[in-house]
Protein backbone atom coordinates (compact mmCIF):
# COMPACT_ATOMS: atom_id res chain seq x y z
CA UNK A 1 0.00 0.00 0.00
CA UNK A 2 1.10 3.55 -0.66
CA UNK A 3 -0.36 6.71 0.84
CA UNK A 4 -0.73 9.81 -1.31
CA UNK A 5 -1.99 13.12 0.02
CA UNK A 6 -4.46 14.60 -2.42
CA UNK A 7 -2.94 18.07 -2.02
CA UNK A 8 -0.04 16.69 -4.04
CA UNK A 9 -2.54 16.08 -6.82
CA UNK A 10 -3.52 19.78 -6.74
CA UNK A 11 0.12 20.70 -7.42
CA UNK A 12 0.40 18.36 -10.39
CA UNK A 13 -2.89 19.55 -11.85
CA UNK A 14 -1.80 23.18 -11.53
CA UNK A 15 1.48 22.37 -13.25
CA UNK A 16 -0.26 20.53 -16.10
CA UNK A 17 -2.81 23.32 -16.68
CA UNK A 18 -0.01 25.84 -17.03
CA UNK A 19 2.21 23.69 -19.20
CA UNK A 20 -0.56 22.68 -21.58
CA UNK A 21 -1.76 26.23 -22.16
CA UNK A 22 1.73 27.56 -22.91
CA UNK A 23 3.46 24.70 -24.67
CA UNK A 24 2.48 22.02 -27.15
CA UNK A 25 3.45 18.41 -26.49
CA UNK A 26 6.57 17.57 -28.56
CA UNK A 27 4.74 14.77 -30.40
CA UNK A 28 1.99 17.20 -31.41
CA UNK A 29 4.51 19.78 -32.52
CA UNK A 30 6.54 17.28 -34.57
CA UNK A 31 3.40 15.97 -36.26
CA UNK A 32 2.42 19.51 -37.25
CA UNK A 33 5.94 20.37 -38.47
CA UNK A 34 5.99 17.27 -40.67
CA UNK A 35 2.51 17.94 -42.05
CA UNK A 36 3.40 21.57 -42.82
CA UNK A 37 6.02 20.33 -45.28
CA UNK A 38 3.32 18.49 -47.25
CA UNK A 39 0.96 21.46 -47.62
CA UNK A 40 0.98 22.81 -51.18
CA UNK A 41 -1.63 25.62 -51.16
CA UNK A 42 -0.22 29.10 -50.64
CA UNK A 43 -2.86 30.11 -48.07
CA UNK A 44 -2.36 26.76 -46.33
CA UNK A 45 1.38 27.37 -46.10
CA UNK A 46 0.75 30.86 -44.75
CA UNK A 47 -1.56 29.44 -42.05
CA UNK A 48 1.00 26.78 -41.08
CA UNK A 49 3.67 29.44 -40.69
CA UNK A 50 1.35 31.50 -38.46
CA UNK A 51 0.68 28.36 -36.39
CA UNK A 52 4.35 27.51 -35.94
CA UNK A 53 5.22 31.12 -35.10
CA UNK A 54 2.38 31.19 -32.58
CA UNK A 55 3.53 28.04 -30.77
CA UNK A 56 7.04 29.48 -30.48
CA UNK A 57 5.80 32.86 -29.23
CA UNK A 58 3.43 31.26 -26.71
CA UNK A 59 6.28 29.34 -25.13
CA UNK A 60 8.78 32.22 -25.24
CA UNK A 61 6.44 34.89 -23.90
CA UNK A 62 4.38 32.61 -21.68
CA UNK A 63 1.19 33.74 -23.29
CA UNK A 64 -1.56 31.16 -23.87
CA UNK A 65 -1.58 29.22 -27.15
CA UNK A 66 -5.23 30.19 -27.57
CA UNK A 67 -7.43 32.85 -26.01
CA UNK A 68 -9.85 30.00 -25.35
CA UNK A 69 -7.96 28.39 -22.50
CA UNK A 70 -10.68 25.80 -22.53
CA UNK A 71 -12.52 23.50 -20.21
CA UNK A 72 -10.22 21.07 -18.44
CA UNK A 73 -10.82 17.31 -18.56
CA UNK A 74 -8.85 15.13 -16.16
CA UNK A 75 -8.56 11.37 -16.52
CA UNK A 76 -7.32 9.71 -13.34
CA UNK A 77 -6.11 6.14 -13.20
CA UNK A 78 -5.85 5.36 -9.52
CA UNK A 79 -3.98 2.25 -8.47
CA UNK A 80 -6.05 0.12 -6.10
CA UNK A 81 -3.08 -0.12 -3.73
CA UNK A 82 -3.11 3.63 -3.20
CA UNK A 83 -4.56 5.11 -0.02
CA UNK A 84 -5.72 8.65 -0.59
CA UNK A 85 -5.52 11.00 2.37
CA UNK A 86 -6.56 14.61 2.68
CA UNK A 87 -9.38 16.45 0.95
CA UNK A 88 -11.61 14.61 -1.57
CA UNK A 89 -9.65 14.00 -4.74
CA UNK A 90 -12.08 15.81 -7.06
CA UNK A 91 -11.84 18.85 -4.85
CA UNK A 92 -8.05 18.59 -4.99
CA UNK A 93 -8.15 18.48 -8.79
CA UNK A 94 -10.38 21.57 -8.92
CA UNK A 95 -8.07 23.42 -6.54
CA UNK A 96 -5.23 22.82 -8.99
CA UNK A 97 -7.30 24.14 -11.91
CA UNK A 98 -8.39 27.18 -9.91
CA UNK A 99 -4.82 28.03 -8.89
CA UNK A 100 -3.51 27.73 -12.45
CA UNK A 101 -6.27 29.79 -14.06
CA UNK A 102 -6.39 32.59 -11.52
CA UNK A 103 -2.61 32.99 -11.29
CA UNK A 104 -1.72 32.76 -14.99
CA UNK A 105 -4.18 35.23 -16.55
CA UNK A 106 -5.92 32.45 -18.44
CA UNK A 107 -9.43 33.13 -19.63
CA UNK A 108 -12.06 31.78 -17.27
CA UNK A 109 -14.73 30.34 -19.51
CA UNK A 110 -16.91 28.22 -17.26
CA UNK A 111 -20.45 29.33 -16.41
CA UNK A 112 -22.36 28.05 -13.40
CA UNK A 113 -25.82 27.29 -14.71
CA UNK A 114 -25.88 26.31 -18.37
CA UNK A 115 -29.50 27.25 -19.00
CA UNK A 116 -29.97 29.99 -16.42
CA UNK A 117 -28.03 33.20 -15.99
CA UNK A 118 -24.79 31.58 -17.21
CA UNK A 119 -22.83 33.36 -14.54
CA UNK A 120 -19.05 32.91 -14.90
CA UNK A 121 -17.40 31.04 -12.00
CA UNK A 122 -14.31 33.23 -12.63
CA UNK A 123 -11.81 30.49 -11.83
CA UNK A 124 -12.51 28.03 -14.67
CA UNK A 125 -13.86 25.39 -12.31
CA UNK A 126 -15.38 22.91 -12.18
CA UNK A 127 -13.38 20.72 -14.50
CA UNK A 128 -14.47 17.29 -15.69
CA UNK A 129 -12.97 14.39 -13.75
CA UNK A 130 -13.04 10.79 -15.00
CA UNK A 131 -11.78 8.14 -12.63
CA UNK A 132 -10.71 4.57 -13.23
CA UNK A 133 -9.44 2.16 -10.60
CA UNK A 134 -6.53 0.11 -11.95
CA UNK A 135 -3.99 -2.35 -10.51
CA UNK A 136 -0.87 -0.94 -8.89
CA UNK A 137 0.17 1.74 -6.41
CA UNK A 138 0.46 4.78 -8.66
CA UNK A 139 -1.84 7.51 -9.90
CA UNK A 140 -1.69 8.45 -13.56
CA UNK A 141 -3.08 11.85 -14.44
CA UNK A 142 -3.97 12.57 -18.05
CA UNK A 143 -5.22 16.01 -18.96
CA UNK A 144 -6.97 17.33 -22.03
CA UNK A 145 -7.71 21.05 -22.28
CA UNK A 146 -10.16 21.81 -25.02
CA UNK A 147 -11.73 24.97 -26.36
CA UNK A 148 -15.36 24.93 -27.37
CA UNK A 149 -14.84 25.89 -31.01
CA UNK A 150 -13.85 22.29 -31.46
CA UNK A 151 -15.90 20.75 -28.62
CA UNK A 152 -19.04 22.07 -30.34
CA UNK A 153 -18.17 19.92 -33.36
CA UNK A 154 -18.58 16.68 -31.36
CA UNK A 155 -21.16 14.17 -32.59
CA UNK A 156 -22.69 10.91 -31.47
CA UNK A 157 -24.69 8.57 -33.66
CA UNK A 158 -26.33 5.35 -32.56
CA UNK A 159 -25.95 3.11 -35.61
CA UNK A 160 -27.88 -0.13 -36.08
CA UNK A 161 -25.73 -3.22 -35.40
CA UNK A 162 -25.76 -4.10 -39.09
CA UNK A 163 -24.03 -0.83 -40.09
CA UNK A 164 -20.74 -1.12 -41.95
CA UNK A 165 -17.36 0.58 -41.72
CA UNK A 166 -18.43 2.58 -44.77
CA UNK A 167 -21.44 3.95 -42.83
CA UNK A 168 -19.07 5.14 -40.11
CA UNK A 169 -16.81 6.70 -42.74
CA UNK A 170 -19.78 8.55 -44.26
CA UNK A 171 -20.82 9.86 -40.84
CA UNK A 172 -17.28 11.07 -40.21
CA UNK A 173 -16.92 12.82 -43.56
CA UNK A 174 -20.35 14.41 -43.26
CA UNK A 175 -19.44 15.76 -39.82
CA UNK A 176 -16.01 17.09 -40.80
CA UNK A 177 -17.49 18.66 -43.90
CA UNK A 178 -20.15 20.45 -41.90
CA UNK A 179 -18.36 21.35 -38.69
CA UNK A 180 -14.64 20.77 -39.22
CA UNK A 181 -14.05 24.29 -40.44
CA UNK A 182 -15.30 25.75 -37.15
CA UNK A 183 -13.07 23.48 -35.09
CA UNK A 184 -9.80 25.21 -36.13
CA UNK A 185 -8.24 22.81 -38.63
CA UNK A 186 -5.85 21.09 -39.15
CA UNK A 187 -7.64 18.70 -36.81
CA UNK A 188 -6.98 15.82 -34.46
CA UNK A 189 -9.87 13.35 -34.53
CA UNK A 190 -10.75 10.78 -31.88
CA UNK A 191 -13.43 8.19 -32.55
CA UNK A 192 -15.07 6.03 -29.91
CA UNK A 193 -16.92 2.97 -31.12
CA UNK A 194 -18.97 0.61 -28.93
CA UNK A 195 -19.92 0.55 -25.26
CA UNK A 196 -22.89 2.74 -24.42
CA UNK A 197 -23.60 6.21 -25.77
CA UNK A 198 -21.75 7.93 -22.92
CA UNK A 199 -18.88 5.45 -22.99
CA UNK A 200 -18.36 5.91 -26.72
CA UNK A 201 -18.01 9.66 -26.11
CA UNK A 202 -15.48 9.03 -23.36
CA UNK A 203 -13.51 6.71 -25.65
CA UNK A 204 -13.48 9.39 -28.35
CA UNK A 205 -11.72 11.72 -25.92
CA UNK A 206 -9.34 9.05 -24.59
CA UNK A 207 -8.40 8.26 -28.19
CA UNK A 208 -6.46 11.54 -28.35
CA UNK A 209 -4.56 11.25 -25.08
CA UNK A 210 -1.65 9.04 -26.17
CA UNK A 211 -1.00 9.65 -29.89
CA UNK A 212 -0.24 6.01 -30.61
CA UNK A 213 0.64 5.09 -34.22
CA UNK A 214 -2.32 4.91 -36.62
CA UNK A 215 -3.47 1.59 -38.10
CA UNK A 216 -4.50 1.01 -41.70
CA UNK A 217 -8.17 2.01 -41.35
CA UNK A 218 -7.22 5.12 -39.38
CA UNK A 219 -4.74 6.15 -42.08
CA UNK A 220 -7.40 5.52 -44.70
CA UNK A 221 -9.96 7.69 -42.87
CA UNK A 222 -7.38 10.44 -42.40
CA UNK A 223 -6.67 10.42 -46.12
CA UNK A 224 -10.40 10.61 -46.88
CA UNK A 225 -10.73 13.66 -44.63
CA UNK A 226 -7.78 15.32 -46.28
CA UNK A 227 -9.34 14.74 -49.68
CA UNK A 228 -12.12 17.13 -48.57
CA UNK A 229 -9.54 19.92 -49.10
CA UNK A 230 -10.91 22.04 -46.25
CA UNK A 231 -7.32 22.88 -45.41
CA UNK A 232 -5.62 24.77 -42.58
CA UNK A 233 -8.02 27.29 -41.00
CA UNK A 234 -10.63 26.05 -43.49
CA UNK A 235 -9.16 28.25 -46.21
CA UNK A 236 -8.46 25.40 -48.61
CA UNK A 237 -5.46 23.10 -48.80
CA UNK A 238 -4.16 19.57 -48.46
CA UNK A 239 -3.99 19.18 -44.68
CA UNK A 240 -7.41 19.20 -43.05
CA UNK A 241 -6.56 16.67 -40.35
CA UNK A 242 -3.25 15.64 -38.79
CA UNK A 243 -4.13 12.52 -36.88
CA UNK A 244 -7.03 10.14 -36.33
CA UNK A 245 -7.44 7.42 -33.72
CA UNK A 246 -10.23 4.92 -33.13
CA UNK A 247 -10.89 3.30 -29.75
CA UNK A 248 -13.34 0.46 -29.46
CA UNK A 249 -15.14 -1.38 -26.66
CA UNK A 250 -17.55 -4.34 -26.66
CA UNK A 251 -21.16 -3.30 -27.17
CA UNK A 252 -24.75 -4.62 -27.19
CA UNK A 253 -26.15 -6.96 -29.89
CA UNK A 254 -28.71 -4.31 -30.80
CA UNK A 255 -26.41 -1.35 -31.34
CA UNK A 256 -23.25 0.35 -32.56
CA UNK A 257 -22.60 3.68 -30.84
CA UNK A 258 -20.12 5.92 -32.68
CA UNK A 259 -18.80 9.13 -31.11
CA UNK A 260 -16.54 11.60 -32.89
CA UNK A 261 -14.39 14.06 -31.00
CA UNK A 262 -12.81 16.77 -33.12
CA UNK A 263 -9.89 18.70 -31.66
CA UNK A 264 -8.22 21.81 -33.02
CA UNK A 265 -4.53 21.81 -34.04
CA UNK A 266 -3.44 22.82 -30.56
CA UNK A 267 -4.10 19.46 -28.97
CA UNK A 268 -3.41 20.34 -25.34
CA UNK A 269 -2.60 16.95 -23.79
CA UNK A 270 -0.24 16.02 -21.02
CA UNK A 271 0.30 13.37 -18.41
CA UNK A 272 2.02 12.86 -15.06
CA UNK A 273 2.40 9.66 -13.06
CA UNK A 274 2.55 10.03 -9.30
Amino acid sequence: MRTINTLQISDYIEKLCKRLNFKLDDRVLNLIRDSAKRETSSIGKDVFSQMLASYRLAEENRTPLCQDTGMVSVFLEIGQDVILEGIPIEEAVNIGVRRAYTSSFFRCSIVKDPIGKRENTMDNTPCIVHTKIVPGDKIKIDMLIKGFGSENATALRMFPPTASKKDIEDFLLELVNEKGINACPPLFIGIGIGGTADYALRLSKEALLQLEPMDEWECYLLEKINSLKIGPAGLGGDITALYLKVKTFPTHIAGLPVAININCHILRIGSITV
Partner: protein
Amino acid sequence: MEYHLLLPLKEEDRIRLKAGDKVFLTGEVYGMRDQAHKRILELLERGEDIPIDLNNSCIFYVGPTEAKPGDKVGSIGPTTSSRMDPFTPKLISYGVRVIIGKGRRNKDVIEAIKKYRAVYLVSPGGVSAYLRQFVSEIKIVAFQDLGPEAIYILKLKDFPTFVSIDTGGNFL
Protein backbone atom coordinates in the same frame (compact mmCIF):
# COMPACT_ATOMS: atom_id res chain seq x y z
CA MET B 1 -3.71 40.07 -53.73
CA GLU B 2 -2.48 41.67 -50.53
CA TYR B 3 -3.80 44.93 -49.10
CA HIS B 4 -2.82 47.09 -46.16
CA LEU B 5 -5.94 49.05 -45.22
CA LEU B 6 -7.02 51.62 -42.65
CA LEU B 7 -10.27 51.25 -40.73
CA PRO B 8 -13.01 52.26 -41.17
CA LEU B 9 -12.94 50.77 -44.68
CA LYS B 10 -14.45 52.93 -47.41
CA GLU B 11 -16.97 51.29 -49.71
CA GLU B 12 -14.50 51.30 -52.62
CA ASP B 13 -11.92 49.54 -50.43
CA ARG B 14 -14.41 46.84 -49.56
CA ILE B 15 -15.50 46.31 -53.16
CA ARG B 16 -11.89 45.77 -54.26
CA LEU B 17 -11.45 42.86 -51.88
CA LYS B 18 -11.99 39.38 -53.30
CA ALA B 19 -12.36 36.09 -51.46
CA GLY B 20 -8.88 34.70 -50.87
CA ASP B 21 -7.10 38.08 -50.66
CA LYS B 22 -4.92 38.79 -47.66
CA VAL B 23 -5.77 41.99 -45.81
CA PHE B 24 -3.71 43.68 -43.09
CA LEU B 25 -5.98 45.93 -41.03
CA THR B 26 -5.02 48.97 -39.02
CA GLY B 27 -7.45 50.89 -36.84
CA GLU B 28 -10.11 50.41 -34.18
CA VAL B 29 -12.53 47.52 -34.00
CA TYR B 30 -15.14 46.38 -31.50
CA GLY B 31 -14.45 43.04 -29.89
CA MET B 32 -17.69 41.29 -29.06
CA ARG B 33 -19.23 37.84 -29.04
CA ASP B 34 -22.36 35.86 -28.14
CA GLN B 35 -23.92 37.54 -25.09
CA ALA B 36 -22.94 41.06 -26.18
CA HIS B 37 -24.62 40.49 -29.56
CA LYS B 38 -27.78 39.33 -27.85
CA ARG B 39 -27.82 42.31 -25.52
CA ILE B 40 -27.06 44.93 -28.21
CA LEU B 41 -29.89 43.65 -30.38
CA GLU B 42 -32.32 43.58 -27.47
CA LEU B 43 -31.50 47.25 -26.79
CA LEU B 44 -31.84 48.21 -30.45
CA GLU B 45 -35.14 46.40 -30.77
CA ARG B 46 -36.55 48.20 -27.74
CA GLY B 47 -35.43 51.47 -29.36
CA GLU B 48 -32.94 52.18 -26.58
CA ASP B 49 -29.45 53.68 -26.87
CA ILE B 50 -26.53 51.34 -27.31
CA PRO B 51 -23.06 51.95 -25.87
CA ILE B 52 -21.22 51.63 -29.22
CA ASP B 53 -21.43 53.30 -32.63
CA LEU B 54 -22.19 50.69 -35.27
CA ASN B 55 -22.04 53.08 -38.24
CA ASN B 56 -19.46 51.74 -40.73
CA SER B 57 -17.96 49.72 -37.90
CA CYS B 58 -15.84 46.59 -37.71
CA ILE B 59 -16.65 43.78 -35.30
CA PHE B 60 -14.08 41.20 -34.25
CA TYR B 61 -15.55 38.06 -32.62
CA VAL B 62 -13.18 37.76 -29.72
CA GLY B 63 -12.92 36.95 -26.03
CA PRO B 64 -9.26 37.56 -25.15
CA THR B 65 -7.28 36.39 -22.16
CA GLU B 66 -6.30 39.08 -19.70
CA ALA B 67 -2.90 40.71 -20.27
CA LYS B 68 -0.29 39.63 -17.75
CA PRO B 69 1.61 42.34 -15.87
CA GLY B 70 4.02 44.11 -18.22
CA ASP B 71 2.04 43.19 -21.34
CA LYS B 72 -0.46 45.42 -23.12
CA VAL B 73 -2.60 42.57 -24.40
CA GLY B 74 -3.25 38.92 -23.66
CA SER B 75 -3.82 36.15 -26.19
CA ILE B 76 -6.18 37.29 -28.91
CA GLY B 77 -7.85 35.35 -31.68
CA PRO B 78 -11.18 34.84 -33.40
CA THR B 79 -14.00 32.69 -32.05
CA THR B 80 -16.44 30.67 -34.20
CA SER B 81 -18.53 33.06 -36.27
CA SER B 82 -21.51 30.81 -37.00
CA ARG B 83 -22.78 31.26 -33.44
CA MET B 84 -23.32 34.93 -34.29
CA ASP B 85 -25.23 34.11 -37.51
CA PRO B 86 -28.69 34.74 -35.99
CA PHE B 87 -27.63 38.30 -35.02
CA THR B 88 -25.38 39.31 -37.92
CA PRO B 89 -27.83 40.33 -40.69
CA LYS B 90 -29.52 42.78 -38.26
CA LEU B 91 -26.21 44.19 -37.08
CA ILE B 92 -25.10 44.68 -40.68
CA SER B 93 -28.37 46.50 -41.36
CA TYR B 94 -27.52 48.77 -38.39
CA GLY B 95 -24.16 49.70 -39.92
CA VAL B 96 -21.55 46.98 -39.36
CA ARG B 97 -19.49 46.67 -42.55
CA VAL B 98 -16.47 44.55 -41.64
CA ILE B 99 -16.47 41.38 -39.56
CA ILE B 100 -13.47 39.36 -38.39
CA GLY B 101 -14.04 35.81 -37.17
CA LYS B 102 -13.41 32.23 -38.13
CA GLY B 103 -15.35 29.57 -39.98
CA ARG B 104 -18.40 29.46 -42.19
CA ARG B 105 -21.47 31.78 -42.30
CA ASN B 106 -25.05 30.91 -43.20
CA LYS B 107 -27.04 32.05 -46.24
CA ASP B 108 -28.73 34.94 -44.45
CA VAL B 109 -25.37 36.41 -43.49
CA ILE B 110 -24.05 36.07 -47.05
CA GLU B 111 -27.18 37.82 -48.37
CA ALA B 112 -26.76 40.69 -45.89
CA ILE B 113 -23.09 41.00 -46.82
CA LYS B 114 -24.05 41.33 -50.49
CA LYS B 115 -26.90 43.74 -49.86
CA TYR B 116 -24.85 46.17 -47.76
CA ARG B 117 -21.49 45.58 -49.47
CA ALA B 118 -19.99 44.35 -46.24
CA VAL B 119 -17.05 41.98 -46.01
CA TYR B 120 -16.30 38.94 -43.84
CA LEU B 121 -12.66 38.36 -42.95
CA VAL B 122 -11.13 35.40 -41.14
CA SER B 123 -7.99 34.65 -39.21
CA PRO B 124 -6.88 31.17 -38.18
CA GLY B 125 -8.06 29.90 -34.82
CA GLY B 126 -5.46 28.70 -32.34
CA VAL B 127 -2.73 31.18 -33.30
CA SER B 128 -3.48 33.75 -30.61
CA ALA B 129 0.10 34.10 -29.45
CA TYR B 130 0.93 35.18 -33.01
CA LEU B 131 -2.08 37.44 -33.61
CA ARG B 132 -1.67 39.34 -30.35
CA GLN B 133 1.44 40.99 -31.79
CA PHE B 134 -0.82 42.96 -34.12
CA VAL B 135 -3.01 44.39 -31.36
CA SER B 136 -1.48 47.42 -29.67
CA GLU B 137 -4.22 48.19 -27.18
CA ILE B 138 -7.39 46.71 -25.78
CA LYS B 139 -9.97 48.09 -23.35
CA ILE B 140 -13.47 47.24 -22.20
CA VAL B 141 -16.07 49.78 -23.36
CA ALA B 142 -19.34 48.17 -22.30
CA PHE B 143 -21.04 45.28 -20.51
CA GLN B 144 -18.18 44.72 -18.07
CA ASP B 145 -20.44 42.35 -16.12
CA LEU B 146 -20.14 39.82 -18.94
CA GLY B 147 -16.50 39.14 -18.02
CA PRO B 148 -14.63 37.78 -21.06
CA GLU B 149 -17.79 38.43 -23.11
CA ALA B 150 -17.77 42.20 -22.54
CA ILE B 151 -17.47 44.63 -25.48
CA TYR B 152 -13.89 45.74 -26.11
CA ILE B 153 -12.21 48.27 -28.35
CA LEU B 154 -9.05 46.86 -29.91
CA LYS B 155 -6.43 48.88 -31.78
CA LEU B 156 -5.12 46.79 -34.64
CA LYS B 157 -1.83 47.37 -36.38
CA ASP B 158 -1.38 45.45 -39.64
CA PHE B 159 -3.55 42.66 -38.27
CA PRO B 160 -3.47 39.76 -40.78
CA THR B 161 -6.75 38.40 -42.15
CA PHE B 162 -8.03 36.63 -45.24
CA VAL B 163 -11.16 37.60 -47.15
CA SER B 164 -13.64 34.77 -46.66
CA ILE B 165 -16.83 36.37 -48.07
CA ASP B 166 -16.47 39.38 -50.36
CA THR B 167 -19.00 42.10 -51.17
CA GLY B 168 -20.24 40.04 -54.12
CA GLY B 169 -21.12 37.17 -51.82
CA ASN B 170 -18.33 35.00 -53.23
CA PHE B 171 -16.75 32.86 -50.57
CA LEU B 172 -13.76 30.68 -49.89
